[in-house]
Each structure stands twice: as C-alpha cells, then as structure tokens.
C-alpha cells in the first residue's frame, strides 16, 4: 500500500511530512528546506516547474508563473476574492465556462485546481525521493473555514496529482496534533495565520480526544496581504518623492513584494531591515534606485488594520464557543504570519494568555496531518481522535430567496439533517433544489455548492407534493445529499456539484481512478 503522507497545501508555501510510529518528519528538498513555495511556472513547452525552482520566474516570467492559486480554488467568478485577483495578479485570470475562474497561459487556460495539482505533484515527488517508494495516498490539510466547494476542488487537485485523499483535515486541528511536547489537557485557541488564509479554532483536549468547540476564519486574509500593504506604502512614498510608479513594471513589483516578505520575516528577529531595489526606473536619464529602511514600528503600523481584522474574527469565535479569554489554557500560534512581532503582541494583549511552546512555525500543519495519516492508515502511531465541526452554515435556497437551514455553524461532524420541501405550483412535476453554504440569510449571497434535481414527481396541488432532503456532512467537511419523494418513497441521489459539474457517482469514479493509477 505504501506510505501515507501529510500535506499542508498553503497559499504561499506548502509542506509534506511523513510519520512512522508516531515520529513525524517534514520532508526536505535537496537543500534541506521544508517549506516549498506554492508557485508553479509554466514554460511555453515542457513540464511545469514548482516549488523553490519556480520562485525566480516570479520576476523573470510573471505572466506565466502562478502563485496563490489557493485564493482562487473552488471559488466562483463572482466571488469578491476572485474579482480582487483579476487585474491585480501578473498572470491573467479569466472567466471559464462554468462561471469559474481560469488562468490564461500561453494561449491556453488552466484551472486553479490544476495549479494546486502541480504543487501537490511536486510535493509527492519530493516525498518519493526521500522515502524511496511510490507515494499514492495522503491526508491533506485545508483551512477550517473552507466550504464544501473549496474542499472538493482540493480533493480533485490531489486526484489529478495521483494522490488518494484518505482524509481532509482542518489546518488548525492538524496543528494541534503536532505540538511537542504535546498539548496538556485543557482548552486552547489555535490562531492560524497563514500566507493567504486566517483561521481560529477553539478546541478542548482531554487525553486522546481533540474536540473542536468552535471555528471561524477570514478566507481573504493572509500574510501576503501584509506584503502588499508594505509594498504599497513604499510605492506611495517613492511615487511622491521620485514620480515613478513601482507597480508599472510587473517584475519590479514582484521583486518589491518579495523584498517586503523577506524584510517582514527578518523583522521578527531584528529591529530594522533595509529594502533595496536597483534600477527601478529612470528620471532625466539617471537610473533610480529604491533604498528604504523599515523598522518594527513601521511594520506594526502598516499591518495594524490586518491584525485588527484577525482579532475581530478571534473575538467572534470565542463568543461562538461561549468562552471568555481567561477560560483558555493557552494560545497556539500557527503559520508564518503568526511569527510577526506585531501579531504576537496584539494577540497577547487581546487574550492575555501565553503562547503554547513547541509549535513548528511553518511545518506544524503538515506534521499534524502526517501523524493523522499514520493513524488513518492503521499504522502504529496514535495521533489522537479528532472531533471537528461544520465551519459555515449550510442550507437550501428557499423560493422566497431565503435559506432553509440544514446545518448550523459549529455543529459537530459527522452531522445529518433533514428538511421537507414542497412544490410551489399546481401540477409541478420537478423540483430543483439548490444547496448553499455561507453566513448570509439571503441565498444569493452565499456560495452555491450544487443542486439536486428531483424529477417525475406525482401530480398534485401546490405544496401537497413534498420531498424530504437528507443531507450529511462527513468528517472531512464534505457534503452528501439525497432527496426522498415522500409520496412514492423514491430516492433521488443525483446531487450535482456546481464546481465540477459532476455527480457523486462520477466523483467516486474519479477517486477510484486515482486509487488505481
């Protein structure tokens, strides 16, 4: 069967780890690095280049080098996050047939999930090289707040990369498994600030059980927003002083973003860092150079609005958990962005609880996923039993534009729910039920996950012909839906996902192919 690896597929960086008898190791590349940039360069001919090797192409060939595909994966064209990406990225984001964004490259297009698949393929290759055997199965971590469509797209990406997904695990929960020395019994808040997503989870550990009490997040908040905020401030200053817009040249802008990221990381240790770019433009025939010095205080001021957004989410999740900050036994700071001093100081001031030691700042999620992978595969290591929850409310779109609730947020999974829906017209023979996920009470403001078509209904007056919809959310946060015609008892199981346009049976076929590949 081969080994099962744990994968953290991040917005800016990814990691892959492997566990044997409870001992987890992050898998390095040839230079010993364990965080692999989620960047893929597509040359005009030849195979895609992913990971560290693709990073230079961000500056050399920005139009054909894709980063942050995770911010697009599983999202509709109308999604604000996708709208924001169009035009703001050096590569072209275009509208695909199914109202989903695609990335235009060399006259063709690739889906965001195909880019993620290339990142996963790279991770898989690294693991195979290290372990010396084929790797076909994985536990993949996703942001806790990912909806069903985003989870589905991630699974599809893994299948395309030839990986069978044994489990999708929520990133903060996975991180809790990897802490060494292990978390003591108690209630903890996991503050997971990654490159492109932000999650907060409150969980309670008692012996071998990790029970999630509440979770929440901001899927459009990440460390790369900080890099952009820093670069934007430098750009403004430079524009005022020299009249040159650093954004005009994509490669200059990419270089500046990269320099800001490096400075941000270095400021965790140092008080002041230079940001230097040569030949950013010309004025009066004289080459212009950018040379500024950024301090911790400058960084703290620049990122303050982003940190405040994360604190607002944190407060909201604590409220949903029915807890006050003093009831927490500790705070687990996960993700590269949580290492920024301004973030740590703000969280400490907000919660007044000590950070839990022993968290690997970047590989925690992958290590936890690996520990879980060993457990799920029936190995000797015991990671712990995870009890997770539904991240966002889910329901049916009602005829009046509202939502018929199926699952409330923070319902423990596996969860099941039923709702009875009636026809709205006399003699109506078919019902098309749309399943939506999101916080809004209006169906159109939420994400449409898919629809269930119930055909061949018996004739009857409006409201007299009724259908029972049975929904189940499994441990991976994935949805299964079927409808039962209450008159005939017939089961309609064809739930078609909007994202892939595939029914569950078709998805199963795809999964089987991934398994036997």
């Amino acid at each position, binding site marked *: *069967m*081969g*080994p*099962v690896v744990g994968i953290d597929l991040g917005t800016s960086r990814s990691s892959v780890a492997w*566990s*044997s*008898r409870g001992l987890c190791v992050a898998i390095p590349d040839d230079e010993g690095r364990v965080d692999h940039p989620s960047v893929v360069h597509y040359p005009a001919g030849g195979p895609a280049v992913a990971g560290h090797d693709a990073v230079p192409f961000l500056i050399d060939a920005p139009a054909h080098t894709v980063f942050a595909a995770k911010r697009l994966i599983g999202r509709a064209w109308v999604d604000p996050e996708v709208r924001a990406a169009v035009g703001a990225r050096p590569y072209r984001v275009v509208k695909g047939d199914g109202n989903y964004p695609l990335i235009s490259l060399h006259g063709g297009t690739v889906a965001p999930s195909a880019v993620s698949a290339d990142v996963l393929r790279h991770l898989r290759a690294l693991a195979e090289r290290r372990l010396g055997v084929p790797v076909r199965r994985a536990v993949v971590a996703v942001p806790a707040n990912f909806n069903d469509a985003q989870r589905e797209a991630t699974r599809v990406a893994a299948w395309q990369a030839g990986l069978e997904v044994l489990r999708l695990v929520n990133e903060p929960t996975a991180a809790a498994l990897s802490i060494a020395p292990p978390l003591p019994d108690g209630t903890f808040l996991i503050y997971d600030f990654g490159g492109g997503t932000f999650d907060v989870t409150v969980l309670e550990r*008692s*012996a*071998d*059980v990790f*029970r999630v009490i509440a979770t929440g997040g901001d899927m459009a908040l990440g460390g790369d927003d900080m890099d952009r905020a820093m670069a934007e401030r430098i750009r403004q200053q430079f524009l005022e002083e020299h009249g040159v817009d650093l954004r005009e040249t994509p490669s200059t802008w990419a270089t500046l973003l990269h320099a800001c990221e490096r400075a941000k990381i270095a400021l965790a240790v140092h008080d002041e860092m230079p940001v230097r770019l040569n030949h950013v433009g010309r004025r009066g025939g004289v080459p212009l150079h950018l040379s500024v010095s950024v301090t911790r205080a400058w960084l703290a001021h620049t990122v303050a609005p982003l940190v405040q957004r994360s604190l607002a989410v944190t407060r909201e999740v604590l409220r949903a958990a029915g807890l006050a900050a003093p009831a927490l036994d500790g705070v687990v700071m996960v993700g590269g962005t949580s290492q920024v001093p301004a973030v740590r100081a703000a969280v400490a001031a907000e919660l007044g609880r000590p950070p839990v030691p022993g968290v690997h700042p970047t590989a925690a999620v992958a290590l936890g996923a690996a520990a879980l992978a*060993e*457990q*799920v*595969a*029936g*190995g*000797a290591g015991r990671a712990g*039993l*995870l*009890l997770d929850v539904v991240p966002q409310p889910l329901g049916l779109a009602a005829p009046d534009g509202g939502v018929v609730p199926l699952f*409330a947020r923070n*319902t*423990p*999974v*596996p*969860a*099941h*729910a*039923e709702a009875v829906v009636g026809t709205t017209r006399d003699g109506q023979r078919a019902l098309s039920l749309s399943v939506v996920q999101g916080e809004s009470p209006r169906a159109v403001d939420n994400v449409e996950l898919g629809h269930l078509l119930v055909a061949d209904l018996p004739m009857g007056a409006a409201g007299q012909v009724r259908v029972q919809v049975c929904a189940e959310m499994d*441990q991976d946060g994935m949805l299964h839906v079927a409808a039962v015609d209450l008159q005939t008892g017939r089961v309609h199981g064809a739930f078609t996902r909007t994202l892939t346009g595939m029914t569950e049976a078709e998805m199963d076929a795809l999964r089987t192919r991934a398994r036997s590949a």
Partner: protein
Amino acid sequence: MSTVPVAGGPRDVVVVERSPFTRMAFINLAARLPAGLFLHDSLDKALPTLGGTRPAMLFLARQVLLEASAPSLQDLVGAMAQGRTRCVVLVARGEPADAGGRMALAVDGYLSVPAPGHLLLAAALGESIQDDGFRPGTARAAPVVTPTPFAAAVSMPRTLPAVAPPVDVRPAGPRTLTPVPFPAPVDPAAQAADLRRHRLMQLDLDRLDHFAVLGVPMSAGRREVLSAYLALVRCFHPDLAAALRDSRLAAEVRAVYRRVTDAWTVLGNDAHRADYARRLSAGAPGGRAAAI
C-alpha cells in the same frame, strides 16, 4: 505507516467471539494491529482472502481451540509478522482494560494455519462457539461437544509454528471440555457501561432517544454528558476502525459513531437540550429523526 515487516503479503487474524465484549475489544485490537495484518470477526469473512474451501472440521477444531493454552497476543502477532503462519483463529473474550472504556482481548485459545490448504475449518465455528449460552453474570455451562461424521477423516497440520504449544490431537468422541473461567468483573459499573456500549451496536439506534444513546439520565449534568460522549468516541471513532478490513463491521462502527455524534449535537448544546428534553417529556419520539 508501521515499519513492522510482514513477509509474504497480508495475513489474517480471525477472532471468534466468546463474550459480548469482544466486539469492542476487536475494534481496539484492530486499531493497534501492525500494517499487513487484517482482522475478521468470523471465519466466513476470512475464507475468501485465504482461498480456503468450505470446511468440515468443526469438531476437531473446536477441541484444539479450547485446549490450547492462551499465548500472548504479541507472540501471535510476532509469529505472523515473521511469516511463519498465515492465519490465526483466536477464541477470545473482551475484558475491560482501563477506566477509559477500552477493552482488551483475552485469548482463550487459538489455532494457527500455516497455509490456506489447512483451513478446513467450519465456517460455522464462529456461531458454534459464540452461542454457548454464556451471559455475563450467569453461571456458565460447559460446552458440550457432539461428534460429527467428518471427525474421523481429519488430521491436524503437522507443521505448526514454533509459538504454538504442542497440540494433542485426540480421537474424536463425546467429551466435556474444561470451561475457561471468565474473570470476575473488576468494576461492575464499568462492566455495565461496556455492556451498554456493546448493546449500542445491536440496538435500533435510530429509535433510541439521545439520553439512552449516551447512557446518561435526563438529569445528568453537562460534564457527565460530555464524558459519556467522549467515552463512546474512544470506542467508535472511525479512526479506530481504520485497520478493519471487514467493510461491514467498519460501516457498523461508523453508523454507531454518527448516532453518538447526533446525540451529542443535541445534548451538548444547552438550548437544544432543554428544548429536546421538554419535547421528550411531552411524549414526543426522541430518536435520530428528532431534529434539533
């Protein structure tokens, strides 16, 4: 992934139940089994994977099984991992092992089968030994063995693995076997809880009310409800059934786990619980369909 080498492909462990607790212990054992070893809860399910034929040696097998002194599970697993034996049939009891509600598998006897060709055991073996009238807390009647017409034509494999104690193959005939003593319950309350847990797998869970599923009185406090839920999680979490090759049993575990989670979803939320208790007191059905 475990690194225990298992030579020559997957091997099978068949557990023949001897007590109502075996099912729980079985799940716990499955969770600890090295990779490459597979559990079945009856010979029926093991046969296809072993390439065995419909067996006819019920009588002899039964004697051997009951008379073999109980080896430790480690020895058996070790022997299997070294490839000396292909299949082990355990006659086993579950016993409460710790306060966390875990069950240990106590082996009363076993039969190891070096190659599929030797697996001429009765598929009926499972039912035959399982249904020996034993119930916890009652005096246990010694099983009576009746001769079968096949008995004379049968001989035991000569190449038993080293870990197996010498097997005395006696001529078939009616005789009474020494009953294996069942250990006195350490803690009656714990045993009652385990029995309830086992029953959960047999009851009509969809109709049972949430309090009954978690095994708590309606007056139970939040902490009590939570610890009852966590105790059941430790028995039925799907990860514990990950090593089960038997998909039917794994599905059964998942179904119980779903039901347990349902009960917690309602009883773990104060508002939902109050509402549910009110409806239950008013005589409403309290089963799975009773929505939040």
